[in-house]
């Protein structure tokens, strides 16, 4: 195992970098999507709630591997071979992968955020409104700060799931850790050693992320006292 790592360590660590880059892009956009759609699903406006419901159900109802194939192969095919738009439309594997992660994780984040907001007693909103705060102000200053604290563990959980889901994007040729490891196995045929190293690498990164999350959680608790 150590022997293999000394030979392919650099390749695998670079690939881990690509995995993290992909996760970072995906998660950033997912947070934005999740917040927007999450809030849309609790506001009074029926059109907003309807859109949020359709979005969440659509994305949750499609396996991510299908979404990945659809975005990477299907969408450019639609533009280049069906609609015949003038210039060649392409999405790099990083772009397609980020969109895929953002949509997938965004839908789950929206549900976490909706549940978080709804877990705050309605009395809080009513009280804030009765002292004269406008709806958005009350949401921003009273409801969301309380909601976020209950959301944090679920959000961290979702981050970890999404980080691991990047491995699915090996199927669209993105040189992340799993795809790279497949190539290492194809060259060396040392399955046990390669997948062992890959498992340990994921584990280390995820343990670090968990530790970071714990620190963050403690901070938020401290500030609220």
């Amino acid at each position, binding site marked *: 195992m150590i022997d293999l790592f000394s030979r392919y360590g650099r390749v695998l660590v670079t690939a881990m970098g690509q995995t993290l880059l992909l996760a970072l892009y995906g998660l950033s956009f997912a947070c934005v999507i999740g917040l927007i759609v999450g809030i849309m699903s609790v506001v009074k406006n029926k059109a907003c709630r309807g859109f949020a419901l359709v979005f969440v159900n659509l994305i949750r109802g499609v396996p991510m591997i299908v979404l990945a194939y659809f975005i990477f192969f299907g969408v450019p095919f639609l533009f280049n071979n069906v609609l015949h738009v003038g210039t060649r439309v392409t999405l790099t594997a990083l772009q397609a992968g980020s969109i895929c992660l953002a949509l997938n994780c965004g839908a789950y984040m929206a549900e976490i955020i909706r549940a978080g907001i709804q877990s705050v007693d309605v009395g809080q909103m009513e009280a804030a409104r009765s002292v004269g705060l406008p709806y958005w102000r009350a949401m921003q200053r009273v409801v969301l700060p309380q909601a976020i604290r209950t959301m944090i563990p679920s959000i961290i959980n979702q981050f970890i799931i999404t980080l691991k889901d990047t491995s699915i994007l090996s199927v669209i040729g993105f040189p992340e850790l799993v795809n790279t490891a497949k190539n290492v196995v*194809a060259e060396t045929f040392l399955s046990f050693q390669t997948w062992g190293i890959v498992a340990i690498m994921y584990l280390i990164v995820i343990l670090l992320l968990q530790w970071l999350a714990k620190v963050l959680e403690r901070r938020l608790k401290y500030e609220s006292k």
Partner: protein
Amino acid sequence: MKKLIAALLTILMLAGAAAAFAEDYSFGTDTAFRPFEYTDETGTLVGIDVEILAAIAEDQGFTYTIEPLGWDASIAACQAGQKDALIAGASITEKRKAEGWIFSDGYYNANQSMAVAVGSDITGFDGLKGQSVAVKTGTESKSYADSLAETYGFTVMTFESSPDIYQAVISGQCVACFDDTPIMADYIKSNGVPLQLVPGTESEGADYGMAIFDPAKTEIIEKFNAGLANIKENGKYDEILAKYLGN
């Protein structure tokens, strides 16, 4: 009466289970590697590899099972001892031999080449600068593309199957793909895949061989080689090739 039927059914099931374990050898192969192995409209596994193996088994009088596990999974299954041998259009190379592959005699000479979308203006490796090309993980075509990547300044993207790399080119995500010439020729011929081979991009080529990974199983190789020589002699071999490749 009911008891009798139940007893008969039990015996049948046991016999069936016993028969499943009674085959002499088990082979792993790729899922979709036309025209060497693929599933036809009726759901049957067919192809040059499948028929050559069937002809050799008949000639040598052994029984076998063949399962389309996929390329990587077939190799892993053979290494782990779950399958005895691999017949999946595997090129015989010195590198693989050094890594522990044990090959039969070659049963088909194949080379690799580049294909582009129909109507593409790329006529050789020179047109690949700054572009991405698609290859299949762990294949000779990947090694071939890798060996050219630096000189011609293109990026190599790896996918899991031949249909995946053709999709990448057809949808415009990659400008070209590298795969075994007969495989691409067959896809273009029988499926009307909108790709065209680029003349002058062929690699030196190598023979395809059946492979095992366990030196204790060389008996399979001996029987395969003997059977191959026989079917080449009696014309069965040419018949199979003509059926799948024409001319």
